[in-house]
């Protein structure tokens, strides 16, 4: 839509402006890592951050959420409403924006998930472009998520003493229109400036995966029976479920009933679940269709690099690197994919 400038000194004012009408969440330091959390002002956040422990999907698909309340002995839910305030997710990286686009595809697909849909509508995305690669675990270059493309209302890019703001939606435009801290400028000049910044930025971003974007899905198509790689990953895996909990595109859930102490009623809700856990694919009779850790890990990888490509024409790996960063057994997505590619060459 259009571009404006924001002076770096006015960042706090920008947050204050947003807070007039929204709950604002942003990256905040937690020990040696980062999390998305509520902020009361610009000074609370750490805009230069590596991907947060859990991605900001938690604001749209909370770890645990009520699907509805019930009275004991009844059969229909009596209240399926949710409470939410309009929320700005501030400072989202492009990889996480891509993650939300993946979840949008799944949850908006017929039959659309009404909880996700309503929360999503209530969220404004203000992105923050990475000018440096975060660490050695990210694969955003291969996944092509290191440059802003779409999926945000406003994108901020660091341009020295100011930010360039790309206003990309009506929602974003309304926010910019409500403040007087934004500087209008010649659109072509800003575009040129942005182009120069990106030209300087791109050489700093190196490819970590050997196969290229186009080679990835064909590689997985041939790698299902690469038992050497899958068995090695399975042997090291402790099935802790960390890799799926931190993944911006994982969305599996379990449904629970929580009954009140007086047993008069309760709520039915859902909670994040993980295909890495032993019970996940077990049926009531006891049969487990992914009993081995190796087959569960393989399932995870295929849910990123193969199945969604067939189904939705989209990779469900954003290259954020969280699964590798969080794995205490040091199972690395980069190593796994490169090992698969190596096996392919050897054949």
């Amino acid at each position, binding site marked *: 839509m259009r571009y404006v400038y924001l002076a770096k000194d006015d960042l706090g004012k920008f947050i204050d402006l947003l807070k007039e009408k929204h709950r604002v969440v942003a990256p905040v330091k*937690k*020990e*040696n*890592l980062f*999390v998305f959390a509520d902020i009361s002002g610009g000074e609370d956040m750490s805009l230069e951050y590596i991907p947060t*422990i*859990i991605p900001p999907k938690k604001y749209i698909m909370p*770890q*645990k959420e009520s699907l509805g309340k019930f009275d004991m002995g009844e059969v229909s839910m009596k209240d399926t409403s949710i409470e939410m305030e309009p929320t700005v997710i501030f400072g989202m990286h492009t990889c996480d924006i891509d993650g939300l686009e993946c979840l949008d595809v799944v949850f908006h697909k017929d039959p659309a998930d009404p909880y996700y849909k309503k929360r999503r509508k209530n969220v404004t995305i203000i992105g923050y472009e990475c000018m440096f690669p975060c660490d050695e675990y990210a694969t955003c270059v291969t996944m092509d998520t290191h440059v802003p493309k779409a999926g945000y209302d406003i994108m901020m890019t660091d341009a020295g003493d100011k930010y360039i703001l790309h206003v990309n939606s009506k929602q974003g435009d309304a926010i910019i229109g409500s403040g007087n801290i934004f500087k209008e400028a010649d659109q072509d000049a800003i575009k040129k400036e942005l182009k120069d910044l990106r030209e300087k930025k791109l050489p700093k971003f190196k490819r970590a995966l050997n196969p290229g974007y186009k080679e990835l899905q064909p590689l997985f198509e041939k790698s299902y029976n690469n038992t050497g790689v899958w068995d090695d990953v399975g*042997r*090291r*895996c*402790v*099935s*802790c*479920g*960390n890799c799926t*909990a*931190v993944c911006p595109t994982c969305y599996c859930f379990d449904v629970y009933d929580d*009954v009140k*102490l*007086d*047993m*008069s009623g309760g709520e039915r809700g859902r*909670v*994040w679940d*993980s295909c890495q*856990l*032993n*019970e996940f694919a077990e049926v009531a009779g006891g049969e487990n269709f992914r009993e081995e*850790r190796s087959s569960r890990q393989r399932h995870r990888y295929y849910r990123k690099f193969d199945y969604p490509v067939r189904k939705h024409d989209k990779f469900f790996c954003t290259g954020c690197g969280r699964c590798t960063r*969080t794995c*205490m*057994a*040091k199972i690395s997505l980069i190593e796994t994919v490169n090992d698969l590619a190596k096996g392919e060459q050897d054949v």
Partner: protein
Amino acid sequence: MSEDKKKVRIAFFDFADCEGCQLQLTYLNENFLGLLEHCEIVSFREAMSERSDEYDIAFVEGSITRKHDEERVRKIRENAKIVIAYGSCASLGGVNGLRRRFSDEEAKEIVYKGRDSHLEAGWPRPVHEVVKVDHFIHGCPSNNDETIKAVKSILLGKGYTPPDYPVCVECKLKENVCLFEKGQVCMGPVTRAGCGAWCPSWGNTCYSCRGLLDDPAEQGQTELLEKYGYTIDDITEKFDLYNRCRMDAEKEAEKK
């Protein structure tokens, strides 16, 4: 709730343990009162003096060690409709299992030092090695949130099965910084969840007090601990602390 609805009678019993799990229950406060709408406590040494032998649910706390304890727990089993092994000493054998590293004589010498002529050194066992147990509530100490969840679930007629996934699952949902990330070692990956990652959420490592998962990734966890510089002895120590009785039982089963 109708007044005439018969309340479920609950009794608490303790064996070889510190009674810390029963003590936890006294922290329940108003939640305890909520539960009392549906049940009645008939024996609870930690909080009341009256006692009764008529009960539906028996919470058995502590490991079974001496002959006399065996007889007592058998009697409880006969009286109760449902027996719950409450807390890790009862559900796993718990830290009492460490006693199994020594012979009876050694144990007596270490603990009672010459004043042992009239004292017994029993063989510590989890309750289910002596009588049938219907439900398990693990933990050292047990976690009140889980205890309430279990009691509600049992009252609803669906029994209670503790999760068969690791503590990490609950820890990560809370967005804790992983202890491995901070260079500490944690038994979370192989330990049964249900405590809400109680210790890691307060910066402490997991000691596996709730016991190992049904199918723990022992090899993965061992390789992992080795990677962080631990020797096999250190690792055994970590697995042993709460799981000695189970590991003995598994060795026995393998022999057969």
